Protein backbone atom coordinates (compact mmCIF):
# COMPACT_ATOMS: atom_id res chain seq x y z
CA UNK A 1 0.00 0.00 0.00
CA UNK A 2 2.71 2.47 0.88
CA UNK A 3 5.07 3.54 -1.87
CA UNK A 4 8.72 4.29 -1.34
CA UNK A 5 9.34 7.96 -1.91
CA UNK A 6 11.99 9.04 -4.37
CA UNK A 7 12.99 11.97 -6.52
CA UNK A 8 15.01 12.52 -9.65
CA UNK A 9 16.49 15.62 -11.19
CA UNK A 10 16.99 16.41 -14.82
CA UNK A 11 18.38 19.47 -16.55
CA UNK A 12 16.10 21.65 -18.58
CA UNK A 13 16.89 24.72 -20.59
CA UNK A 14 16.63 27.31 -17.86
CA UNK A 15 17.60 25.20 -14.86
CA UNK A 16 16.40 21.83 -13.80
CA UNK A 17 13.40 19.77 -12.94
CA UNK A 18 12.93 18.07 -9.60
CA UNK A 19 10.31 15.35 -9.82
CA UNK A 20 9.16 13.67 -6.64
CA UNK A 21 7.08 10.54 -6.35
CA UNK A 22 5.78 8.11 -3.74
CA UNK A 23 4.84 8.71 -0.10
CA UNK A 24 6.62 11.72 1.32
CA UNK A 25 5.90 11.03 4.97
CA UNK A 26 7.63 11.26 8.31
CA UNK A 27 8.55 7.58 8.20
CA UNK A 28 10.91 8.11 5.29
CA UNK A 29 11.98 11.58 6.31
CA UNK A 30 15.42 10.61 7.60
CA UNK A 31 16.50 8.89 4.37
CA UNK A 32 14.96 11.56 2.17
CA UNK A 33 16.58 14.28 4.24
CA UNK A 34 20.04 12.78 3.76
CA UNK A 35 19.54 12.45 0.00
CA UNK A 36 18.24 16.00 -0.26
CA UNK A 37 21.21 17.30 1.74
CA UNK A 38 23.50 15.73 -0.85
CA UNK A 39 21.54 17.25 -3.69
CA UNK A 40 21.55 20.77 -2.32
CA UNK A 41 25.25 20.49 -1.50
CA UNK A 42 26.02 19.63 -5.12
CA UNK A 43 25.68 23.28 -6.21
CA UNK A 44 23.59 23.04 -9.31
CA UNK A 45 23.87 25.89 -11.76
CA UNK A 46 20.91 27.45 -13.46
CA UNK A 47 18.25 30.02 -12.93
CA UNK A 48 15.18 28.03 -12.05
CA UNK A 49 14.19 24.81 -10.31
CA UNK A 50 10.79 23.31 -10.84
CA UNK A 51 9.37 20.94 -8.24
CA UNK A 52 7.04 18.51 -9.93
CA UNK A 53 4.80 16.90 -7.34
CA UNK A 54 2.11 15.33 -9.50
CA UNK A 55 3.40 11.81 -8.76
CA UNK A 56 3.48 12.24 -5.01
CA UNK A 57 0.92 9.84 -3.58
CA UNK A 58 0.98 11.03 0.03
CA UNK A 59 2.37 14.09 1.70
CA UNK A 60 2.45 14.96 5.38
CA UNK A 61 3.95 17.80 7.37
CA UNK A 62 7.40 16.21 7.45
CA UNK A 63 7.35 15.71 3.68
CA UNK A 64 6.14 19.23 3.06
CA UNK A 65 8.78 20.54 5.42
CA UNK A 66 11.52 18.66 3.56
CA UNK A 67 10.41 20.05 0.22
CA UNK A 68 10.11 23.53 1.61
CA UNK A 69 13.56 23.34 3.17
CA UNK A 70 15.07 22.13 -0.09
CA UNK A 71 13.38 24.95 -2.01
CA UNK A 72 14.77 27.39 0.50
CA UNK A 73 18.28 26.08 0.03
CA UNK A 74 18.03 26.39 -3.74
CA UNK A 75 16.84 29.92 -3.28
CA UNK A 76 19.91 30.67 -1.21
CA UNK A 77 22.01 29.34 -4.11
CA UNK A 78 20.39 31.75 -6.50
CA UNK A 79 17.81 29.47 -8.10
CA UNK A 80 14.17 30.40 -8.20
CA UNK A 81 12.00 27.54 -6.94
CA UNK A 82 8.62 26.87 -8.50
CA UNK A 83 6.06 24.22 -7.60
CA UNK A 84 4.03 22.29 -10.10
CA UNK A 85 1.31 19.70 -9.76
CA UNK A 86 0.44 20.74 -6.23
CA UNK A 87 -2.98 19.31 -5.51
CA UNK A 88 -5.48 21.26 -3.45
CA UNK A 89 -5.00 19.40 -0.19
CA UNK A 90 -1.21 19.51 -0.62
CA UNK A 91 -1.38 23.26 -1.15
CA UNK A 92 -3.20 23.76 2.19
CA UNK A 93 -0.65 21.58 3.91
CA UNK A 94 2.19 23.47 2.28
CA UNK A 95 0.84 26.83 3.36
CA UNK A 96 0.34 25.58 6.91
CA UNK A 97 3.88 24.21 7.11
CA UNK A 98 5.41 27.29 5.54
CA UNK A 99 3.62 29.54 7.98
CA UNK A 100 4.80 27.59 11.00
CA UNK A 101 8.45 26.82 10.39
CA UNK A 102 10.91 27.73 13.07
CA UNK A 103 13.85 26.48 15.04
CA UNK A 104 13.82 25.30 18.60
CA UNK A 105 15.59 27.66 20.95
CA UNK A 106 18.68 25.94 22.35
CA UNK A 107 18.05 24.05 25.54
CA UNK A 108 20.60 25.83 27.67
CA UNK A 109 23.91 24.13 26.99
CA UNK A 110 26.46 25.41 29.46
CA UNK A 111 29.25 26.93 27.38
CA UNK A 112 31.43 28.11 30.26
CA UNK A 113 34.88 26.56 30.84
CA UNK A 114 34.98 23.44 32.97
CA UNK A 115 36.75 25.08 35.91
CA UNK A 116 34.12 27.81 36.05
CA UNK A 117 31.28 25.25 35.84
CA UNK A 118 32.84 23.23 38.65
CA UNK A 119 33.27 26.28 40.88
CA UNK A 120 29.73 27.36 40.08
CA UNK A 121 28.35 23.96 41.02
CA UNK A 122 30.25 23.89 44.30
CA UNK A 123 29.03 27.40 45.03
CA UNK A 124 25.44 26.52 44.13
CA UNK A 125 25.56 23.44 46.33
CA UNK A 126 26.94 25.46 49.21
CA UNK A 127 24.27 28.13 48.86
CA UNK A 128 21.59 25.45 48.59
CA UNK A 129 22.87 23.80 51.78
CA UNK A 130 22.84 27.18 53.52
CA UNK A 131 19.28 27.83 52.35
CA UNK A 132 18.29 24.34 53.47
CA UNK A 133 19.68 24.79 56.97
CA UNK A 134 18.06 28.20 57.12
CA UNK A 135 14.76 26.66 56.02
CA UNK A 136 14.84 23.85 58.56
CA UNK A 137 15.81 26.17 61.41
CA UNK A 138 12.93 28.38 60.28
CA UNK A 139 10.58 25.42 60.38
CA UNK A 140 11.79 24.56 63.84
CA UNK A 141 10.82 28.06 64.93
CA UNK A 142 7.42 27.81 63.25
CA UNK A 143 6.90 24.43 64.90
CA UNK A 144 7.78 25.85 68.35
CA UNK A 145 5.37 28.75 67.80
CA UNK A 146 2.56 26.41 66.84
CA UNK A 147 3.40 24.16 69.77
CA UNK A 148 3.26 27.13 72.14
CA UNK A 149 -0.16 28.07 70.76
CA UNK A 150 -1.27 24.51 71.34
CA UNK A 151 0.04 24.60 74.89
CA UNK A 152 -1.86 27.82 75.57
CA UNK A 153 -5.09 26.45 74.17
CA UNK A 154 -4.90 22.64 74.16
CA UNK A 155 -7.97 22.53 71.92
CA UNK A 156 -5.66 23.38 69.03
CA UNK A 157 -3.64 20.22 69.50
CA UNK A 158 -4.99 17.76 66.95
CA UNK A 159 -5.25 14.55 68.93
CA UNK A 160 -6.65 12.30 66.23
CA UNK A 161 -3.86 12.91 63.70
CA UNK A 162 -1.31 12.73 66.53
CA UNK A 163 -2.47 9.26 67.54
CA UNK A 164 -2.76 8.23 63.89
CA UNK A 165 0.84 9.20 63.18
CA UNK A 166 2.04 7.61 66.41
CA UNK A 167 0.48 4.38 65.24
CA UNK A 168 1.85 4.62 61.72
CA UNK A 169 5.34 5.83 62.58
CA UNK A 170 5.74 4.06 65.90
CA UNK A 171 3.58 1.02 66.40
CA UNK A 172 3.66 -0.16 62.79
CA UNK A 173 7.45 0.13 62.79
CA UNK A 174 7.78 -2.35 65.67
CA UNK A 175 8.22 -5.57 63.67
CA UNK A 176 10.98 -4.25 61.43
CA UNK A 177 12.77 -2.48 64.30
CA UNK A 178 12.61 -5.59 66.49
CA UNK A 179 13.83 -7.89 63.75
CA UNK A 180 16.72 -5.71 62.65
CA UNK A 181 17.98 -4.84 66.13
CA UNK A 182 17.73 -8.45 67.27
CA UNK A 183 19.82 -9.59 64.32
CA UNK A 184 22.39 -6.82 64.67
CA UNK A 185 22.67 -7.55 68.42
CA UNK A 186 23.33 -11.17 67.60
CA UNK A 187 25.90 -10.30 64.94
CA UNK A 188 27.79 -7.90 67.21
CA UNK A 189 27.91 -10.53 69.94
CA UNK A 190 29.10 -13.21 67.54
CA UNK A 191 31.84 -11.07 65.96
CA UNK A 192 32.88 -9.67 69.36
CA UNK A 193 33.09 -13.11 70.92
CA UNK A 194 35.20 -14.31 68.01
CA UNK A 195 37.76 -11.52 68.53
CA UNK A 196 37.76 -11.47 72.34
CA UNK A 197 38.28 -15.24 72.50
CA UNK A 198 41.85 -14.73 71.23
CA UNK A 199 42.74 -12.85 74.39
CA UNK A 200 40.74 -15.18 76.57
CA UNK A 201 38.51 -12.22 77.30
CA UNK A 202 35.33 -13.65 75.79
CA UNK A 203 33.41 -13.02 79.00
CA UNK A 204 33.59 -9.33 78.08
CA UNK A 205 31.40 -9.94 75.04
CA UNK A 206 28.46 -9.01 77.26
CA UNK A 207 30.06 -5.66 78.05
CA UNK A 208 30.73 -5.05 74.38
CA UNK A 209 27.16 -5.78 73.34
CA UNK A 210 25.65 -3.83 76.22
CA UNK A 211 27.68 -0.67 75.80
CA UNK A 212 27.70 -0.48 72.03
CA UNK A 213 24.01 -1.22 71.79
CA UNK A 214 22.69 0.95 74.56
CA UNK A 215 24.87 3.94 73.75
CA UNK A 216 25.01 3.93 69.95
CA UNK A 217 23.61 1.17 67.80
CA UNK A 218 20.12 0.94 69.26
CA UNK A 219 19.24 4.58 68.71
CA UNK A 220 21.14 4.87 65.42
CA UNK A 221 19.45 1.86 63.85
CA UNK A 222 16.03 2.94 65.04
CA UNK A 223 16.51 6.50 63.85
CA UNK A 224 17.68 5.33 60.43
CA UNK A 225 14.77 2.92 60.07
CA UNK A 226 12.31 5.63 61.10
CA UNK A 227 13.93 8.15 58.74
CA UNK A 228 13.51 5.70 55.90
CA UNK A 229 9.98 4.66 56.86
CA UNK A 230 8.38 7.77 58.28
CA UNK A 231 10.51 10.74 57.21
CA UNK A 232 9.94 9.72 53.60
CA UNK A 233 6.25 9.13 54.22
CA UNK A 234 5.90 12.63 55.71
CA UNK A 235 7.60 14.16 52.70
CA UNK A 236 5.48 12.19 50.23
CA UNK A 237 2.17 12.84 52.05
CA UNK A 238 2.72 16.55 52.50
CA UNK A 239 4.30 16.80 49.05
CA UNK A 240 1.33 15.32 47.24
CA UNK A 241 -1.03 17.50 49.28
CA UNK A 242 1.06 20.49 48.24
CA UNK A 243 0.94 19.37 44.62
CA UNK A 244 -2.85 19.08 44.64
CA UNK A 245 -3.16 22.51 46.26
CA UNK A 246 -4.70 20.97 49.40
CA UNK A 247 -2.37 23.05 51.54
CA UNK A 248 -3.50 26.23 49.81
CA UNK A 249 -7.09 25.12 50.32
CA UNK A 250 -6.40 24.72 54.04
CA UNK A 251 -4.98 28.22 54.27
CA UNK A 252 -8.00 29.75 52.54
CA UNK A 253 -10.30 27.95 54.98
CA UNK A 254 -8.42 29.55 57.85
CA UNK A 255 -6.69 26.33 58.88
CA UNK A 256 -3.03 26.45 59.74
CA UNK A 257 -1.13 23.75 57.84
CA UNK A 258 1.65 23.83 60.42
CA UNK A 259 -0.81 23.12 63.18
CA UNK A 260 -2.69 20.51 61.16
CA UNK A 261 0.16 18.69 59.46
CA UNK A 262 3.53 19.44 60.96
CA UNK A 263 2.89 19.62 64.72
CA UNK A 264 1.17 16.21 64.94
CA UNK A 265 3.89 14.55 62.87
CA UNK A 266 6.80 16.03 64.82
CA UNK A 267 5.14 15.33 68.16
CA UNK A 268 4.29 11.79 67.11
CA UNK A 269 7.93 11.06 66.33
CA UNK A 270 9.19 12.81 69.48
CA UNK A 271 6.90 10.59 71.54
CA UNK A 272 7.44 7.32 69.71
CA UNK A 273 11.13 7.34 68.80
CA UNK A 274 12.27 7.01 72.46
CA UNK A 275 9.79 4.16 72.92
CA UNK A 276 11.03 2.45 69.79
CA UNK A 277 14.61 2.98 70.92
CA UNK A 278 13.84 1.37 74.26
CA UNK A 279 12.40 -1.67 72.53
CA UNK A 280 15.32 -1.71 70.11
CA UNK A 281 17.73 -1.76 73.05
CA UNK A 282 15.90 -4.67 74.64
CA UNK A 283 15.82 -6.62 71.36
CA UNK A 284 19.52 -5.96 70.70
CA UNK A 285 20.45 -7.20 74.17
CA UNK A 286 18.20 -10.20 73.65
CA UNK A 287 19.97 -10.99 70.38
CA UNK A 288 23.31 -10.68 72.15
CA UNK A 289 22.12 -12.83 75.05
CA UNK A 290 20.92 -15.63 72.79
CA UNK A 291 24.19 -15.58 70.86
CA UNK A 292 26.48 -15.70 73.88
CA UNK A 293 24.35 -18.44 75.34
CA UNK A 294 24.84 -20.51 72.21
CA UNK A 295 28.49 -19.64 71.54
CA UNK A 296 29.96 -19.22 75.00
CA UNK A 297 27.43 -21.07 77.18
CA UNK A 298 26.80 -17.89 79.15
CA UNK A 299 23.40 -18.52 80.66
CA UNK A 300 20.82 -15.74 80.76
CA UNK A 301 21.28 -15.42 84.49
CA UNK A 302 25.01 -14.82 84.12
CA UNK A 303 24.30 -12.45 81.23
CA UNK A 304 22.05 -10.34 83.44
CA UNK A 305 24.58 -10.14 86.22
CA UNK A 306 27.35 -9.12 83.83
CA UNK A 307 25.00 -6.66 82.19
CA UNK A 308 24.40 -4.92 85.50
CA UNK A 309 28.13 -4.66 86.07
CA UNK A 310 28.87 -3.39 82.56
CA UNK A 311 26.14 -0.85 82.00
CA UNK A 312 25.07 1.80 84.44
CA UNK A 313 21.97 3.91 84.12
CA UNK A 314 23.70 6.52 82.02
CA UNK A 315 24.90 4.01 79.44
CA UNK A 316 21.23 3.44 78.79
CA UNK A 317 20.25 7.06 79.37
CA UNK A 318 22.74 8.44 76.87
CA UNK A 319 21.15 6.45 74.08
CA UNK A 320 17.62 7.30 75.04
CA UNK A 321 18.37 10.97 75.53
CA UNK A 322 19.34 11.31 71.88
CA UNK A 323 16.05 9.92 70.61
CA UNK A 324 13.78 13.01 70.90
CA UNK A 325 16.36 15.23 69.22
CA UNK A 326 16.74 12.84 66.33
CA UNK A 327 12.96 12.59 66.10
CA UNK A 328 12.67 16.36 65.71
CA UNK A 329 15.35 16.40 63.02
CA UNK A 330 13.79 13.52 61.05
CA UNK A 331 10.25 14.85 61.24
CA UNK A 332 11.18 18.44 60.44
CA UNK A 333 13.30 17.44 57.45
CA UNK A 334 10.49 15.22 56.16
CA UNK A 335 7.87 17.97 56.52
CA UNK A 336 10.18 20.63 55.14
CA UNK A 337 10.95 18.55 52.03
CA UNK A 338 7.23 17.92 51.57
CA UNK A 339 6.48 21.62 51.71
CA UNK A 340 9.17 22.30 49.12
CA UNK A 341 7.37 20.22 46.48
CA UNK A 342 6.38 22.18 43.40
CA UNK A 343 3.82 21.32 40.71
CA UNK A 344 5.02 18.02 39.30
CA UNK A 345 4.90 14.41 40.38
CA UNK A 346 8.60 14.20 39.69
CA UNK A 347 9.21 16.79 42.37
CA UNK A 348 7.40 14.65 44.96
CA UNK A 349 9.74 11.77 44.23
CA UNK A 350 12.78 14.01 44.32
CA UNK A 351 11.88 15.56 47.66
CA UNK A 352 11.02 12.20 49.19
CA UNK A 353 14.45 10.86 48.28
CA UNK A 354 16.04 14.06 49.52
CA UNK A 355 14.26 13.80 52.86
CA UNK A 356 15.69 10.32 53.50
CA UNK A 357 19.21 11.27 52.46
CA UNK A 358 19.21 14.45 54.51
CA UNK A 359 17.65 13.01 57.63
CA UNK A 360 19.99 9.99 57.75
CA UNK A 361 22.93 12.33 57.24
CA UNK A 362 21.71 14.64 60.00
CA UNK A 363 21.05 11.72 62.35
CA UNK A 364 24.68 10.63 62.04
CA UNK A 365 26.00 14.17 62.44
CA UNK A 366 23.86 14.59 65.56
CA UNK A 367 25.12 11.31 66.92
CA UNK A 368 28.71 12.46 66.48
CA UNK A 369 27.97 15.77 68.20
CA UNK A 370 26.32 13.95 71.09
CA UNK A 371 29.31 11.62 71.39
CA UNK A 372 31.58 14.64 71.75
CA UNK A 373 29.24 16.27 74.22
CA UNK A 374 28.87 13.21 76.44
CA UNK A 375 32.63 12.65 76.44
CA UNK A 376 33.11 16.25 77.50
CA UNK A 377 30.65 15.98 80.39
CA UNK A 378 32.09 12.60 81.28
CA UNK A 379 29.19 10.15 80.97
Amino acid sequence: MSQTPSFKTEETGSGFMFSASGDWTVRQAAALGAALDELSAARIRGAQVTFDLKNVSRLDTAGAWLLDRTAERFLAQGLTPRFEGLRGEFQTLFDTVQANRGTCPDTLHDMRPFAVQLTARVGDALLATGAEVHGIVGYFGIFLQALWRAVKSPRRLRLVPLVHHMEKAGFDALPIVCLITFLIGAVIAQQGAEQLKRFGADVYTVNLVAIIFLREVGILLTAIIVAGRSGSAFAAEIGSMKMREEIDAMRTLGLDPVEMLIVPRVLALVLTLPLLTFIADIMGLLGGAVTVWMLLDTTPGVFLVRLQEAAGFWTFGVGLLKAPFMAIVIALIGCHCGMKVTGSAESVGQQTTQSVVKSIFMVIILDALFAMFFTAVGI
Partner: protein
Amino acid sequence: MKDEAVIDVRGLRTQFGDHVVHENLDLKVRKGEVLGIVGGSGTGKSVLLRTIVGLNRPAAGRIEVLGEEPSMLNEEERQALEQRWGILFQDGALFSALTVAENVQVAYREHLKMPGDMMDELAALKVRLVGLPIEAASKYPSELSGGMRKRAGLARALALDPEILFLDEPTAGLDPIGAAAFDRLLKELQQALGLTVFLVTHDLDTLYATCDRIAVLADKRVILAGTMEDMMASDHPWITEYFKGPRGRAAGRAQGKPG
Protein backbone atom coordinates in the same frame (compact mmCIF):
# COMPACT_ATOMS: atom_id res chain seq x y z
CA MET B 1 -14.15 7.00 -0.30
CA LYS B 2 -16.21 9.41 1.76
CA ASP B 3 -18.11 6.72 3.60
CA GLU B 4 -15.13 4.54 4.36
CA ALA B 5 -15.19 3.74 8.10
CA VAL B 6 -11.82 4.21 9.78
CA ILE B 7 -13.19 3.13 13.14
CA ASP B 8 -15.83 0.45 13.26
CA VAL B 9 -17.11 -0.72 16.63
CA ARG B 10 -19.68 -3.50 16.71
CA GLY B 11 -21.49 -5.08 19.64
CA LEU B 12 -19.00 -3.72 22.15
CA ARG B 13 -19.36 -4.58 25.80
CA THR B 14 -17.00 -3.17 28.39
CA GLN B 15 -17.25 -3.81 32.09
CA PHE B 16 -15.27 -3.35 35.25
CA GLY B 17 -16.09 -6.19 37.59
CA ASP B 18 -19.89 -6.30 37.70
CA HIS B 19 -20.28 -2.78 36.47
CA VAL B 20 -21.23 -2.82 32.78
CA VAL B 21 -20.27 0.42 31.05
CA HIS B 22 -21.19 -0.38 27.45
CA GLU B 23 -23.58 -3.04 26.21
CA ASN B 24 -23.97 -3.88 22.54
CA LEU B 25 -22.51 -0.58 21.41
CA ASP B 26 -22.13 0.18 17.70
CA LEU B 27 -20.26 3.12 16.28
CA LYS B 28 -18.74 4.06 12.96
CA VAL B 29 -16.33 6.90 12.34
CA ARG B 30 -15.91 7.86 8.70
CA LYS B 31 -12.69 8.94 7.08
CA GLY B 32 -11.98 12.65 7.30
CA GLU B 33 -14.83 13.56 9.61
CA VAL B 34 -14.88 15.08 13.08
CA LEU B 35 -17.07 12.93 15.29
CA GLY B 36 -18.10 14.34 18.65
CA ILE B 37 -18.98 11.93 21.46
CA VAL B 38 -21.37 13.37 24.03
CA GLY B 39 -23.14 11.89 27.01
CA GLY B 40 -23.77 12.53 30.67
CA SER B 41 -21.06 12.08 33.25
CA GLY B 42 -20.31 8.43 33.83
CA THR B 43 -21.72 7.17 30.53
CA GLY B 44 -18.28 5.95 29.56
CA LYS B 45 -17.17 8.42 26.90
CA SER B 46 -13.55 8.31 27.96
CA VAL B 47 -13.80 4.58 28.54
CA LEU B 48 -14.95 4.17 24.95
CA LEU B 49 -11.97 6.16 23.73
CA ARG B 50 -9.59 4.14 25.89
CA THR B 51 -11.13 0.89 24.69
CA ILE B 52 -10.80 1.80 21.03
CA VAL B 53 -7.12 2.63 21.41
CA GLY B 54 -6.54 -0.55 23.36
CA LEU B 55 -5.98 0.77 26.89
CA ASN B 56 -9.00 -1.19 28.11
CA ARG B 57 -9.84 -4.70 27.06
CA PRO B 58 -13.39 -5.09 25.78
CA ALA B 59 -15.44 -7.91 27.32
CA ALA B 60 -17.15 -8.63 24.01
CA GLY B 61 -17.55 -7.20 20.54
CA ARG B 62 -15.35 -6.21 17.66
CA ILE B 63 -13.30 -3.08 17.20
CA GLU B 64 -11.76 -2.31 13.85
CA VAL B 65 -9.44 0.65 13.42
CA LEU B 66 -8.04 1.54 9.98
CA GLY B 67 -9.22 -1.82 8.72
CA GLU B 68 -7.42 -3.84 11.38
CA GLU B 69 -8.48 -5.40 14.64
CA PRO B 70 -6.06 -4.22 17.33
CA SER B 71 -6.73 -7.20 19.59
CA MET B 72 -5.82 -9.68 16.83
CA LEU B 73 -2.46 -8.15 15.98
CA ASN B 74 0.93 -9.20 17.24
CA GLU B 75 3.15 -6.76 19.10
CA GLU B 76 4.90 -5.43 16.00
CA GLU B 77 1.75 -4.89 13.96
CA ARG B 78 0.09 -3.23 16.93
CA GLN B 79 2.93 -0.76 17.25
CA ALA B 80 2.71 0.04 13.56
CA LEU B 81 -1.01 0.63 13.95
CA GLU B 82 -0.56 2.73 17.09
CA GLN B 83 1.74 5.03 15.17
CA ARG B 84 -1.11 5.84 12.82
CA TRP B 85 -3.13 7.53 15.52
CA GLY B 86 -2.43 10.26 18.04
CA ILE B 87 -4.09 10.80 21.40
CA LEU B 88 -4.53 13.93 23.45
CA PHE B 89 -5.31 13.05 27.05
CA GLN B 90 -7.35 15.29 29.30
CA ASP B 91 -4.54 17.26 30.85
CA GLY B 92 -2.06 16.70 28.05
CA ALA B 93 -0.31 13.84 29.91
CA LEU B 94 3.03 15.29 28.91
CA PHE B 95 6.11 13.58 30.27
CA SER B 96 7.09 15.93 33.07
CA ALA B 97 10.80 15.13 32.92
CA LEU B 98 11.04 16.25 29.27
CA THR B 99 10.70 19.63 27.61
CA VAL B 100 7.87 20.24 25.17
CA ALA B 101 10.20 19.72 22.20
CA GLU B 102 11.51 16.49 23.69
CA ASN B 103 7.96 15.34 24.32
CA VAL B 104 7.21 15.76 20.62
CA GLN B 105 10.45 14.04 19.69
CA VAL B 106 9.80 10.92 21.76
CA ALA B 107 8.14 9.20 18.82
CA TYR B 108 10.91 10.22 16.43
CA ARG B 109 13.55 8.93 18.79
CA GLU B 110 11.79 5.65 19.48
CA HIS B 111 10.40 4.71 16.10
CA LEU B 112 12.43 6.52 13.45
CA LYS B 113 16.12 6.92 13.04
CA MET B 114 16.25 10.64 12.55
CA PRO B 115 19.16 13.06 12.76
CA GLY B 116 19.07 15.56 15.61
CA ASP B 117 18.65 18.74 13.62
CA MET B 118 15.75 17.27 11.68
CA MET B 119 14.03 16.30 14.94
CA ASP B 120 14.57 19.80 16.25
CA GLU B 121 13.09 21.45 13.19
CA LEU B 122 10.14 19.07 12.97
CA ALA B 123 9.43 19.55 16.66
CA ALA B 124 9.57 23.32 16.18
CA LEU B 125 7.15 22.96 13.28
CA LYS B 126 4.68 20.98 15.40
CA VAL B 127 4.99 23.41 18.29
CA ARG B 128 4.16 26.35 16.05
CA LEU B 129 1.51 24.37 14.23
CA VAL B 130 -0.53 24.05 17.43
CA GLY B 131 -0.21 27.76 18.03
CA LEU B 132 2.40 27.79 20.77
CA PRO B 133 5.18 30.38 20.74
CA ILE B 134 8.49 28.82 19.78
CA GLU B 135 9.96 29.68 23.20
CA ALA B 136 7.59 27.12 24.72
CA ALA B 137 9.56 24.33 23.02
CA SER B 138 12.34 24.42 25.58
CA LYS B 139 10.04 24.69 28.58
CA TYR B 140 9.00 21.92 30.93
CA PRO B 141 5.30 21.03 31.28
CA SER B 142 5.19 22.38 34.84
CA GLU B 143 6.15 25.80 33.51
CA LEU B 144 3.15 25.95 31.16
CA SER B 145 -0.45 26.98 31.76
CA GLY B 146 -3.25 24.45 31.36
CA GLY B 147 -4.18 25.68 27.88
CA MET B 148 -0.57 25.58 26.74
CA ARG B 149 -0.18 22.05 28.12
CA LYS B 150 -3.16 20.96 26.03
CA ARG B 151 -1.64 22.47 22.91
CA ALA B 152 1.69 20.85 23.70
CA GLY B 153 -0.12 17.54 24.14
CA LEU B 154 -1.72 18.06 20.76
CA ALA B 155 1.71 18.74 19.24
CA ARG B 156 2.91 15.42 20.64
CA ALA B 157 -0.17 13.64 19.33
CA LEU B 158 0.56 15.07 15.88
CA ALA B 159 4.26 14.15 15.93
CA LEU B 160 3.97 11.23 13.53
CA ASP B 161 1.30 12.85 11.34
CA PRO B 162 -1.39 10.41 12.41
CA GLU B 163 -4.47 9.59 10.36
CA ILE B 164 -6.77 9.57 13.39
CA LEU B 165 -6.68 12.00 16.26
CA PHE B 166 -8.33 11.05 19.56
CA LEU B 167 -9.13 13.97 21.83
CA ASP B 168 -10.40 13.59 25.39
CA GLU B 169 -12.20 16.76 26.45
CA PRO B 170 -9.75 19.12 24.75
CA THR B 171 -11.49 22.30 25.86
CA ALA B 172 -12.29 21.33 29.45
CA GLY B 173 -10.71 23.79 31.84
CA LEU B 174 -9.95 26.40 29.20
CA ASP B 175 -11.34 29.90 29.28
CA PRO B 176 -13.96 30.65 26.58
CA ILE B 177 -11.48 32.54 24.43
CA GLY B 178 -8.89 29.80 24.75
CA ALA B 179 -11.54 27.16 24.05
CA ALA B 180 -12.78 28.99 20.93
CA ALA B 181 -9.20 29.34 19.72
CA PHE B 182 -8.69 25.62 20.29
CA ASP B 183 -11.83 24.85 18.28
CA ARG B 184 -10.56 26.96 15.39
CA LEU B 185 -7.12 25.38 15.59
CA LEU B 186 -8.63 21.93 15.57
CA LYS B 187 -10.74 22.64 12.50
CA GLU B 188 -7.79 24.20 10.66
CA LEU B 189 -5.47 21.33 11.45
CA GLN B 190 -8.09 18.79 10.57
CA GLN B 191 -8.52 20.38 7.15
CA ALA B 192 -4.82 21.01 6.51
CA LEU B 193 -3.68 17.56 7.59
CA GLY B 194 -6.74 15.62 6.47
CA LEU B 195 -7.33 14.12 9.91
CA THR B 196 -10.14 11.99 11.18
CA VAL B 197 -11.00 13.24 14.65
CA PHE B 198 -12.64 11.32 17.49
CA LEU B 199 -13.62 13.96 19.99
CA VAL B 200 -14.95 13.35 23.48
CA THR B 201 -16.41 16.55 24.82
CA HIS B 202 -18.85 18.27 27.12
CA ASP B 203 -18.51 21.55 25.34
CA LEU B 204 -21.53 22.48 23.22
CA ASP B 205 -19.63 25.27 21.51
CA THR B 206 -16.98 22.81 20.41
CA LEU B 207 -19.67 20.52 19.06
CA TYR B 208 -21.20 23.29 16.99
CA ALA B 209 -17.87 24.70 15.83
CA THR B 210 -15.99 21.57 14.87
CA CYS B 211 -18.09 18.43 14.58
CA ASP B 212 -19.42 16.97 11.34
CA ARG B 213 -21.37 14.33 13.22
CA ILE B 214 -22.27 13.67 16.81
CA ALA B 215 -22.76 10.38 18.63
CA VAL B 216 -24.77 10.37 21.83
CA LEU B 217 -23.91 7.85 24.53
CA ALA B 218 -26.71 6.87 26.89
CA ASP B 219 -28.17 3.65 28.27
CA LYS B 220 -24.77 1.95 27.74
CA ARG B 221 -24.83 2.40 23.97
CA VAL B 222 -24.88 4.97 21.18
CA ILE B 223 -28.51 6.02 21.05
CA LEU B 224 -28.09 8.37 18.13
CA ALA B 225 -25.33 9.25 15.69
CA GLY B 226 -25.86 11.97 13.17
CA THR B 227 -25.57 15.61 12.31
CA MET B 228 -26.66 18.51 14.47
CA GLU B 229 -29.93 18.61 12.51
CA ASP B 230 -30.56 14.97 13.45
CA MET B 231 -29.98 15.89 17.09
CA MET B 232 -32.48 18.70 16.84
CA ALA B 233 -35.05 16.43 15.21
CA SER B 234 -34.72 13.75 17.89
CA ASP B 235 -37.30 13.52 20.65
CA HIS B 236 -35.22 11.44 23.06
CA PRO B 237 -35.58 13.27 26.39
CA TRP B 238 -31.85 13.42 27.18
CA ILE B 239 -30.94 14.67 23.72
CA THR B 240 -33.69 17.26 23.83
CA GLU B 241 -32.54 18.51 27.17
CA TYR B 242 -28.91 18.54 26.13
CA PHE B 243 -29.24 20.36 22.83
CA LYS B 244 -32.35 22.42 23.47
CA GLY B 245 -31.58 23.42 27.04
CA PRO B 246 -30.46 27.00 27.71
CA ARG B 247 -26.79 26.26 27.06
CA GLY B 248 -27.49 24.32 23.92
CA ARG B 249 -29.62 27.12 22.52
CA ALA B 250 -27.00 29.73 23.38
CA ALA B 251 -24.27 27.73 21.67
CA GLY B 252 -26.49 27.21 18.63
CA ARG B 253 -27.29 30.91 18.36
CA ALA B 254 -23.60 31.77 18.63
CA GLN B 255 -22.89 29.58 15.61
CA GLY B 256 -25.92 30.79 13.68
CA LYS B 257 -27.40 27.32 13.51
CA PRO B 258 -30.85 26.03 14.40
CA GLY B 259 -31.64 26.04 18.09
